[in-house]
């Protein structure tokens, strides 16, 4: 247990305390107690920056399941640090924001903070784990906490729908990812990322390399909402806005990006990886920005925008993987730029999108709506919010002097370079890459303008708003203000990040090229193609925004909604119906059917096994001699047993079974088991008394009217069971594989336990634990009987009781 482990576990530990704090200290908003957690963690990670910058990574390992090579290894390098800073930094701001956003009197905020803390811990676990299985565990925990947070307002149908959707899609992907991890383990013999990287040679040559890659990517794409798995993210916007800002834009959805970056050293350099990652990224970028423009809900626009931006980062990681192909050299230097851009944009996106989500939350909170058709003219009422929104959207649109401008320029550089690649068959479609990127950027510009100007300018429509809007409280404005100021700071002084954070992170992504790159982000590139592209984006974007009314009809012509949502819905309902039908076909509710399954399986499996092992081979086992008493006893036993099914009266049946019991007693006597004989005799007596007591008052056993097939099935099954059991008994007699362990008991009974009755000594001494638990079972049974009889509903009509008077003494209703 090291400090780093403590860091991961701290949020979990605190999640346990939160409900207590909420219960006993209810004057203060619970959020204030939660806030120190991320702040504390943030300071810890900030202090680690210089250390990691020097290349000193932290690694602490606790063995967990050593036999399976699973260790809880916490590992802090550049990439982990970057994500940890995001998680704790944005986390602190979101908690602060939520204190003002979530009302402590109306909402179940203790649940909210418990889920949020679980998420925080899980997300830290994902980025700090070196062991893939541990990573997977935390990964699914983020899906789970996301599910709980989306469904926080579970009274709403949409919330539940969105929560389920996100859960199903991300867990499905996570499961595929687990399979991929296991394939990696098969190839390399290790679950540790760094050890797999060390085994790279054998891994890349292996025939399972591509399947493993596809499965891992499936996990990353579902988590990071890549096309066509993006459909869960817009529905996840039903979550409270702080959650959307935190999980669904800044951190959790970036887990997929993290995974791709983390595993890049393994997979990058392969054409399939290049095409899949950059291809899916570009399609997602395009589709997300295209869909965002037509949305009318502020958060929906932001959701699609997030999808689009995630696609952008993903495609950059894909393009950058080409650097690995070239290895150390001049060519690769060009493509490492793409990775730099990816990391830089990751940070930028977290800042401006976090700010924008918080702004959307403020608007929602103050006006009661997020519909841009109802909003407008809020600029003069909420000037600070407007300023923040302006900074955020302009950065998103890629305008100087904000940080979005820089990363967008770098993105353009990367796509332009990629179009000239002469590997992986890029030449044929290479020219499309910059075109798609450019078009998507124009649409990004348009929806950015929609967000800020449709909300804050235009006509003020107070009659459509539920509340009278005014500026938000300071605590709500502070977090987005911090993020917005970061947007400007990073825009003007990008090299603040370059050496301290981006470069160490790049070393993690491209370890083979670690010595080569120098990260330097310059504000002014000169009159380059990229700049002209940006100017084009702004020009056409403004034009499109102004003529929005006219060309928005496009969305009616082109499929407004690709049918992925419908596909998901239909698949889900089909799955539910068919599984219901399947279950109903065999879960009939009839015990008899279940018993038939069990017995049939018993016969089949044991019969096959006995046959296969050839146990009937007679080996002249020594048999005990047979005397006339035993033959008579057995005859009576068998006769009484066989008579039971033919008994017409309840009493006859009970007495016949009792007779069988007494025969068994006699067997015990013959076979030198006095204790058993005594016990069985008394039990049999008491049992028969009990049966008679129970059934004294009940009507006669009705004759069973049964069909021939019914009887035949029963007969076949029961004869089968009988034959199998006989065969087992014979097989055991014939084959003795090892000596009995009873010798020990016979020898030690007197010496160690001081008793002559070995059976009793075994019961109370050698196997005392069994006996203890056995009398507990008895106690439970007796309490069950007592409560079945004494505690019953008294508010039922009397006629159901067959007119009996109730003898309810200690019973409760």
């Amino acid at each position: 247990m090291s400090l780093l482990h403590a860091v991961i576990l701290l949020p979990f530990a605190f999640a346990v305390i939160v409900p207590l704090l909420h219960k006993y200290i209810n004057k203060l908003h619970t959020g204030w107690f939660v806030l120190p957690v991320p702040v504390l963690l943030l300071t810890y990670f900030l202090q680690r920056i210089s250390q990691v910058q020097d290349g000193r990574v932290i690694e602490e390992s606790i063995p967990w399941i050593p036999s399976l090579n699973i260790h809880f290894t916490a590992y802090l390098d550049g990439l982990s640090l970057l994500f940890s800073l995001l998680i704790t930094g944005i986390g602190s701001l979101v908690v602060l924001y939520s204190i003002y956003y979530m009302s402590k009197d109306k909402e179940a905020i203790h649940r909210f903070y418990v889920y949020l803390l679980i998420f925080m811990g899980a997300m830290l676990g994902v980025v700090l784990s070196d062991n893939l299985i541990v990573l997977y565990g935390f990964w699914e925990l983020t899906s789970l906490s996301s599910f709980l947070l989306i469904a926080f307002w579970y009274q709403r149908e949409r919330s539940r729908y969105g929560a389920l959707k996100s859960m199903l899609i991300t867990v499905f992907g996570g499961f595929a990812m687990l399979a991929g991890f296991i394939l990696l383990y098969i190839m390399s013999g290790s679950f540790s990322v760094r050890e797999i990287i060390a085994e790279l040679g054998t891994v890349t040559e292996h025939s399972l390399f591509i399947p493993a890659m596809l499965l891992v990517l499936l996990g990353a794409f579902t988590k990071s909402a890549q096309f066509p798995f993006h459909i869960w993210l817009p529905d996840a916007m039903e979550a409270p806005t702080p959650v959307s800002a935190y999980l669904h834009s800044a951190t959790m959805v970036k887990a997929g990006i993290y995974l791709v970056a983390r595993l890049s050293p393994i997979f990058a350099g392969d054409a399939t990886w290049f095409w899949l990652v950059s291809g899916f990224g570009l399609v997602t970028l395009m589709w997300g920005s295209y869909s965002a423009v037509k949305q009318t809900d502020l958060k929906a626009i932001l959701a699609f925008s997030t999808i689009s931006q995630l696609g952008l980062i993903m495609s950059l990681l894909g393009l950058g993987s080409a650097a690995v192909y070239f290895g150390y050299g001049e060519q690769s230097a060009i493509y490492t730029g793409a990775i730099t851009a990816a990391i830089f944009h990751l940070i930028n996106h977290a800042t401006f999108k976090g700010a924008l989500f918080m702004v959307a939350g403020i608007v929602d909170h103050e006006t009661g709506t997020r519909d841009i058709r109802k909003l407008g003219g809020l600029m003069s009422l909420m000037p600070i919010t407007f300023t923040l929104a302006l900074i955020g959207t302009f950065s998103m649109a890629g305008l100087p002097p904000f940080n979005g401008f820089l990363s967008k320029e770098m993105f353009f550089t990367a796509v332009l370079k990629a179009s000239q690649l002469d590997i992986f068959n890029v030449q044929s479609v290479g020219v499309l890459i910059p075109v798609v990127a450019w078009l998507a950027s124009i649409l990004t510009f348009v929806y950015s303008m929609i967000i800020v100007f449709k909300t804050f300018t235009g006509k003020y429509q107070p009659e459509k708003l539920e509340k009278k809007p005014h500026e938000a409280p300071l605590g709500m404005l502070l977090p987005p203000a911090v993020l917005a100021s970061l947007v400007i700071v990073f825009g003007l002084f990008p090299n603040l990040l370059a050496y301290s954070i981006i470069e160490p992170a790049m070393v993690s992504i491209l370890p083979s090229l670690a010595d080569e790159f120098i990260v330097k982000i310059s504000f002014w590139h000169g009159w380059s193609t990229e700049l002209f592209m940006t100017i084009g984006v702004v020009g056409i974007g403004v034009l499109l925004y102004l003529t929005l009314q006219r060309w928005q009809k496009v969305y009616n012509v082109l499929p407004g909604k690709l049918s992925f949502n419908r596909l998901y819905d239909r698949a889900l309902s089909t799955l539910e119906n068919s599984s219901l039908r399947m279950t109903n076909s065999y879960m009939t509710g009839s015990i008899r059917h279940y018993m038939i399954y069990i017995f049939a399986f018993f016969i089949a499996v044991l019969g096959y096994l006995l046959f296969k092992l050839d146990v009937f081979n007679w080996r002249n086992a020594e048999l005990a001699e047979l005397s006339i008493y035993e033959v008579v006893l057995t005859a009576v036993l068998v006769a009484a047993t066989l008579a039971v099914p033919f008994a017409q009266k309840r009493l006859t049946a009970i007495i016949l079974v009792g007779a069988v019991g007494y025969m068994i007693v006699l067997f015990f006597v013959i076979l030198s088991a006095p204790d058993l004989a005594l016990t069985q005799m008394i039990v049999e007596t008491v049992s028969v008394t009990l049966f008679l007591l129970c059934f004294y008052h009940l009507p006669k056993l009705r004759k069973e009217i049964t069909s021939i097939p019914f009887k035949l099935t029963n007969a076949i099954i029961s004869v089968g069971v009988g034959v199998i059991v006989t065969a087992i008994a014979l097989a055991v007699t014939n084959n003795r594989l090892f000596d009995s362990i009873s010798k020990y008991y016979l020898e030690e009974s007197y010496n160690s336990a001081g008793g002559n009755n070995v059976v009793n000594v075994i019961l109370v001494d050698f196997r005392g634990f069994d006996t203890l638990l056995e009398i507990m079972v008895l106690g439970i049974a007796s309490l069950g009987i007592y409560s079945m009889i004494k505690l019953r509903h008294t508010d039922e009509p009397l006629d159901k009781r067959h007119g009996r008077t109730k003898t309810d003494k200690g019973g409760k209703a």
Partner: protein
Amino acid sequence: MNNGDVILQTSTKIILFIIITFSAYLFFAGHHNPGGGFIGGLMSASALVLLALAFDLKTVRKVIPVNYRVLTALGLLLAVLTGVGSFVFDVPFLSHTFGYFDLPLLGKTELATAVLFDLGVYLAVVGVTMTIILSIGEDT
């Protein structure tokens, strides 16, 4: 449940004590001869069942005014405590020991902690059996 059979009632009065004495013997004999907590307990319980059959449940309650659920709990508690007692002597749960002592009247006698555990079993078995029988008996 009262069938008022005079012969049964009269003989029960005598047999009852024989059975109970025998059950006590079985219980103590258990360590060396057939018997023990289970058998002793069942035997005692069956004596009480006989009482209940010959007279009625009210008589049983009057003669032995014991709450049998409490008896069950006591038995379980005793058994568990015997086990927990092992910890005091720093040995694993449910370790038993025995020794020989010279007692007045009885002479050299073996005393074993296993008997305490067996007593727990005995009490639990009596409690369980009687709870079951009495619950059903009072209901019908």
